């Protein structure tokens, strides 16, 4: 089946999630859709699967334009989808899950479970899946559950199988098995659409690579292209927001992280033996692909998590054992990565949100009684100072636009004397004007002598702001480079993919001078072999379990809005 997307456009309010996307999926092809979080990949697939109706463009199946009113119609047309979060009923058996929604009926209106079992067995045997039709789904490991999803799609005669970030939940071994399955499907003539932001996997398995950025297809690549090329295409060179800033005048290193290790509830090290310094009057950016321990690092600084080893020294005092309130008291300003969840209380007024973490300070309260007048006066000052576009400071903060909401968070955090500023994704989802404003304020805070830590997955932002850049990969800092003009985007992109600094420099240099050789060297004849060769370079050995992609809650992106 040949599936074409022609000029697909999907808008959410003023946000254009998909902007005139043209793609063709050939039969028997593994087609990777590469793009960052929020680039519009999942929205596009939801349009294809009938969950969203496109605002423009059309879907063409084997030369015939089709519209899908819902997943049922998409399935009937031969499109199957395996969601990132499985759509299985844990207490049902594999066979029951597979036939759910189109149960074979035996006499007397009963479900023909024998036939269901046969169907599972047949598909399972054909592809060597080794799945027991009578096992309860909840008892199966994640990798096998994913196979159940694939069987489910295949049992409905899917000719195009969409896999949405299928490796996010898998161990490296399971990923290898999935890659083998994808190849088998391809052999059998099924087209596989593989959505991911992981460069290595793409190069290992894809026949065609389409890169999506900000709702547009920005290019196609072949698996022979180097990771450097893919990374630069995915991250994009487009917007470099020039931030006017004087060279840093770094002072003493007043914030020092020493051998910090943080374990998640399962005992996996999400921050793994991290050490770094931040000096007064300098911005340290922590770059990295989302889910590599940055969130946990900042939450540990704030005291939302406790370190299992190591120290966080602010002015010589360890923040590790302190509560969040005490850390704030010690002068830490914190801009959380998800302002709607962690930064603001939507139903509270702008004025109340502006004093959220200072409501009991003598500035606003006396003897346990808040002064509404002082809270309102403070709000008036901040709204003016930070150019927050609001009707009244008594309006709920939810009435503000994203940019203005973020300004509220910044205004609050910067309205007290700071000894350290930690800002995660400070400009996520903001328009250019707000981004500029936020960047200016952060630089101003630095110039005032505050050590600043910026966590960002946007390379542009990192390059624009940072005086030094530390790259996090799988919970560790894989390397630190100077910011400014000397920072090399290609090197950073490689480091974000887990290549250590020296190797990344060599690869990036090779890329500029001898592109062909570098690719041959990096690839070898079989992409999978190349991946194994590369693996030891990627910090922890292949037997080390990957840091599971932490489910980071992003600010509501179009992909989340259902």
């Amino acid at each position: 089946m040949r599936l074409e997307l022609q000029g697909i456009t999907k808008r959410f309010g003023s946000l254009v999630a998909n902007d005139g996307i043209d793609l063709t999926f050939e039969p028997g092809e593994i087609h990777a859709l590469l793009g960052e979080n929020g680039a519009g990949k999942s929205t596009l697939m939801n349009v294809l699967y009938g969950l969203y109706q496109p605002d423009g463009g059309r879907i063409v199946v084997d030369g015939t334009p089709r519209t899908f009113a819902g997943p049922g119609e998409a399935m009937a047309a031969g499109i199957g989808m395996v969601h990132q979060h499985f759509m299985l009923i844990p207490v049902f058996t594999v066979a029951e899950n597979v036939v759910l929604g189109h149960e074979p009926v035996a006499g007397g209106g009963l479900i023909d479970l024998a036939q269901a079992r046969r169907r599972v067995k047949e598909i399972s045997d054909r592809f060597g899946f080794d799945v027991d039709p009578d096992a309860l789904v909840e008892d199966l490991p994640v990798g096998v559950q994913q196979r159940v999803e694939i069987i489910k799609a295949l049992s409905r005669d899917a000719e195009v199988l969409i896999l949405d970030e299928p490796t996010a939940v898998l161990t490296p071994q399971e990923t290898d098995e999935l890659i083998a399955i994808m190849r088998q499907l391809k052999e059998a003539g099924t087209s596989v659409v593989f959505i991911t932001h992981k460069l290595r996997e793409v190069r290992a398995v894809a026949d065609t690579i389409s890169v999506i950025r900000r709702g547009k297809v920005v290019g196609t690549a072949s698996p022979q292209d180097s990771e450097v090329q893919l990374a630069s295409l995915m991250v994009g060179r487009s917007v470099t927001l020039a931030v006017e800033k004087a060279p840093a005048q770094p002072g003493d290193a007043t914030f020092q992280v020493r051998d910090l290790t943080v374990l998640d509830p399962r005992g996996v090290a999400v921050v793994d033996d991290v050490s770094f310094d931040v000096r007064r009057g300098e911005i340290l950016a922590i770059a990295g692909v989302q889910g590599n321990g940055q969130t946990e690092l900042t939450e540990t600084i704030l005291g939302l998590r406790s370190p299992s080893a190591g120290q966080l020294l602010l002015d010589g005092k360890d923040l590790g054992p302190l509560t969040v309130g005490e850390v704030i008291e010690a002068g830490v300003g914190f801009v959380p990565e998800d302002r709607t969840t962690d930064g603001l209380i939507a139903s509270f007024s702008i004025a109340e949100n502006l004093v959220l973490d200072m409501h009991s300070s003598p500035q606003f309260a006396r003897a346990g009684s808040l002064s509404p007048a002082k809270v309102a006066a403070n709000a008036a000052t901040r709204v003016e100072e930070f150019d927050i576009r609001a009707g009244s400071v008594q309006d709920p903060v939810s009435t503000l636009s994203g940019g203005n909401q973020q300004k509220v968070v910044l205004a609050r955090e910067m309205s007290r004397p700071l000894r350290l500023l930690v800002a995660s994704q400070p400009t996520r989802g903001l328009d250019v004007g707000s981004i500029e404003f936020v960047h200016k304020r952060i630089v101003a805070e630095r110039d005032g002598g505050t050590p600043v830590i910026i966590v960002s997955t946007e390379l542009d932002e990192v390059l624009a702001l940072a005086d030094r850049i530390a790259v996090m990969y799988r919970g560790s800092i894989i390397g630190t480079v100077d910011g400014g003009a000397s920072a090399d985007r290609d090197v950073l992109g490689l480091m974000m993919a887990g290549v250590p600094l020296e190797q990344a420099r060599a690869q990036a240099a090779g890329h500029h001078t001898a592109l062909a050789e570098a690719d041959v060297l990096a690839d070898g004849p079989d992409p999978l072999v190349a991946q194994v060769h590369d693996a030891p370079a990627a910090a922890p050995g292949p037997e080390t379990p990957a840091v599971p992609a932490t489910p980071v809650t992003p600010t509501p992106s179009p992909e989340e809005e259902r």
Partner: protein
Amino acid sequence: MTTTAQAPTPAEPQATEPAREKRGYLQQVLDSSTTTIVVAIVIALILASLLVVAADPASQKALAYVFARPGDFFGAAWDAVYSTYSALFRGAIFDPQASGARQVRPITETMVSSVPLIFAGLGLGIGFRSGLFNIGAQGQVLIGAAAGAWVGFAVPMPAGLHVLVVCVAAAVAGGVWAGIAGFLKARTGASEVIVTIMLNSIAAYLVAYLLTTSVLRQPGSTRPITPPVKDTAVMPLLLGDQFRLHLGFVLAILAAVGVWWLMERSTLGFRFRAVGANQDAARTAGIKVTTVYVLVMLVAGGLAGLGGAMQIVGTDKTFQASSAGSIGFDAITVALLGRSRPLGTVLAALLFGALRAGSPLMQTAAGTPIDLVLVIQAVIVLLIAAPPLVRELSLVHWAAVPFGYDRKKAAA
């Protein structure tokens, strides 16, 4: 590698809230929760009157020949409904048939009945606004009443002081009882809904047991009832011996003002509300969420316990297992009806107090079963829980459509 044009996208369009139009005045009034509540009460009264007619023997008889003489049926139906509601009114608000000061006795009875509901409802409202669904007011009322009664009959004390100590003991007992649920939630994450429901049962059986022991039972009696509280522990009456209205009503109003201050003006209430509205943001702002859980339950339970004590030292004078009646459960309705706000809670408690105070006269004078009051309460709750249903059933809302009222907008 083929790279198609990478048009720089300078502006990432930002997701804005759907522009909220300024609603017209009519729209605002009709969609407000106050209107919903008032209409719900009216609808409940209308539905209840259908039941009154159905249960009325005269109407039943007239219904048999309704097509021959419809006037008979509608006359009988009107009589039944009129006599029911007028009896309810005479029992709850003002009785023109009584003589002298006794004419206003019904309204004071309504106020007396509302006192425990106000206290318990205020406590529940604090919980609801802080994100804690405390179902345990019944147990907290019972424990508070038991503690207040014990201090009232067992501990001799000078007048004045005694009443105060009774109140403190009841508040502490109710607070600790609710605090168990708060503590368990803070420590172990146990659902406060389940724990408070279970604590209701435990409280009921605990006092039932204590009433069979010498701790609470009147010496020499076999009935599970405490001795009467000492005169020093009785709430002073406000309007003399003719009326049962006691100081507790004033205390309830003061408590409502206090709760308003707590939730709207104090730093503690700010933390309560912050945790209720967004735990994650509260935690990130340095608020100790688990401490808030415990404090909220202490305050809520303390108020419920006070409500229980009011029933004993204000009205009943002795304590038995049935003293708490259904105060704790009615208080949940009261808090919901009052939108968890102090003023709303007081008004809702007065309404429920009126239904309770007026129902005996309704039964004796109009012959309408007292259960009708429960039906009215239940229908109100049902309608409050479904505002769209209220708008669907409301003639007012339909009648407003020609004047520019948009019924669909309300859903937004």
